């Protein structure tokens, strides 16, 4: 069985490894860097820089800190590049050790069951398309010298003095926090009526208040009308105002990137539960298969695609994809929101616990935000978890477990959660759902 994988990002490299483990002969074609967008330009570099900015900002705002710290952006870039190189090197080793052949170059559709890479034809029994996505441009303002995509924003040579970020989704708000903490003047515009419009509405509203405290100028329901690039600055016009900044960062969304394979699978590779595109023996996984655009979705789909491509029957069934936004505080969303649960036919209810009730958040000096637990009133089954608060990114997996395991709020309350941890917020919410909280009052 010969499997060809096109694209070496999270969907592709994981698919290649899994297919090889199942005995297939695997060739992976990558035109840029192994690790794809995520490892090289997105998830990893953004989190590396955010972590440094968090520490910098915290030390600047800590009563115990004497003396002056400054942030050296160039050194930070170097440290970030070292992180990326290390993880990319790890992926190379994993592919090699699993016996995957890696071919550098751009793959194109070949004749029949084959892809072409330059002069070479690589035949396949099955193909996994994992070609990712491209940043959507801002209408009327093509990417250019001062109109950047997220890749270039994260790799600027100098720390910018001012930025206008267009797009209040995950990538946009993360960049806003990063640059605001490092001292830049940051503007952030979102076309919808709130930040993080895809999530429970209270989350974006809370995050907006925190961003304002960091000095970010937030515009919601704000359409960018015109962008004028000058030699030393760029001017952004919104209804009712304008701002002149060093750079505009466009983070308005992504679109699937089948590239030359659009000829086989169309502009978005539509897939069924087995990640099959409906065309020949062609599977697709990750961003190229459409939203949500998350590396962890790409991993999960990549595995299923590989299993099917290698001749097993495998399904991507009934799984929630958690959303995590690495702002400060962090924002998470797992499973159904209350509204979604109602629409799905549940008698949904929800409870809310402020992070100020959680010892760990107070001890860390940041008792900000809240969590919401959504459950089914009839049987107490946990349906969703949504929150904004420091450290919540690491709680998302526990919540996902509870949702995927069909746990009840009582099951959750009976699990002993270590003290003092942020995870106690989940246990306390479960106790509140049962009507017997001990660290918050009943509403």
């Amino acid at each position, binding site marked *: 069985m010969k499997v060809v994988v096109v694209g070496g990002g999270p969907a592709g490299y994981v698919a290649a490894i899994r297919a090889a483990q199942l005995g297939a002969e695997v060739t992976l074609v990558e035109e840029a860097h192994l690790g794809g967008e995520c490892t090289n330009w997105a998830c990893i570099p953004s989190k590396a820089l955010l972590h440094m900015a968090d520490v910098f900002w915290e030390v600047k705002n800590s009563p115990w800190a004497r003396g002056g710290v400054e942030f050296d952006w160039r050194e930070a870039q170097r440290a970030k590049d070292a992180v990326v190189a290390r993880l990319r090197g790890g992926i190379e080793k994993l592919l090699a050790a699993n016996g995957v052949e890696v071919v550098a170059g751009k793959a194109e559709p070949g004749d029949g069951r084959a892809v072409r890479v330059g002069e070479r034809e690589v035949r396949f029994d099955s193909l996994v398309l994992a070609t990712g996505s491209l940043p959507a441009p801002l209408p009327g303002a093509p990417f250019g010298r001062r109109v950047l995509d997220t890749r270039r924003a994260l790799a600027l040579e100098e720390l910018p003095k001012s930025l206008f970020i267009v797009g209040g989704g995950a990538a946009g708000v993360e960049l806003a926090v990063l640059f605001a903490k490092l001292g830049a003047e940051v503007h952030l515009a979102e076309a919808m009526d709130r930040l993080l419009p895809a999530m429970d509405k209270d989350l974006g509203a809370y995050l907006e208040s925190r961003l304002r405290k960091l000095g970010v100028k937030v515009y919601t329901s704000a359409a960018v009308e015109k962008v004028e690039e000058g030699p030393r600055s760029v001017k952004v016009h919104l209804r009712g105002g304008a701002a002149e900044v060093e750079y505009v960062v466009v983070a308005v969304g992504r679109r699937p990137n089948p590239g030359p394979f659009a000829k086989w699978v169309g502009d978005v590779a539509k897939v069924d*539960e087995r990640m099959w595109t409906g065309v020949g023996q062609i599977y697709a996984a990750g961003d190229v298969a459409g*939203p*949500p655009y998350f590396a962890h*979705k790409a991993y999960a789909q990549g595995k299923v695609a590989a299993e099917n491509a290698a001749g097993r*029957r*495998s*399904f*991507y*069934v*009934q*799984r*929630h*994809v958690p959303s995590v936004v690495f702002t400060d505080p962090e924002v998470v969303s797992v*499973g*159904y929101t209350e509204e*979604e649960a109602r629409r*799905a*036919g*549940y008698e949904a209810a929800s409870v809310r616990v402020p992070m100020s009730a959680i010892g760990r958040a107070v001890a860390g000096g940041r008792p900000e935000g809240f969590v919401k637990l959504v459950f*089914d009133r009839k*049987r107490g*089954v946990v349906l969703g978890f949504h929150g904004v608060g420091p450290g919540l990114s690491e709680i998302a997996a526990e919540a996902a477990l509870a949702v*995927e*395991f*069909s*746990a*009840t709020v*009582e*099951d959750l309350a009976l699990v002993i959660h270590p003290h003092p941890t942020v995870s106690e917020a989940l246990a306390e919410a479960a106790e509140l759902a049962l009507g017997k909280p001990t660290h918050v009052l009943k509403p």
Partner: protein
Amino acid sequence: EAKAEARPEVRAMPAARRLAKELGLDLSKVVGTGPGGVITVEDVRRAAEAAKRE
């Protein structure tokens, strides 16, 4: 977004859901023995064997 199917009645563990899907078994006919009656992967295996015997 890949949201769960609207099937409020069935409570099952992920491995149980996956195996049921692979076997083409209707989960609503499986009796769960996990915490609070959640269907476990072993429940699905047992149900599949029982179906084979019939």
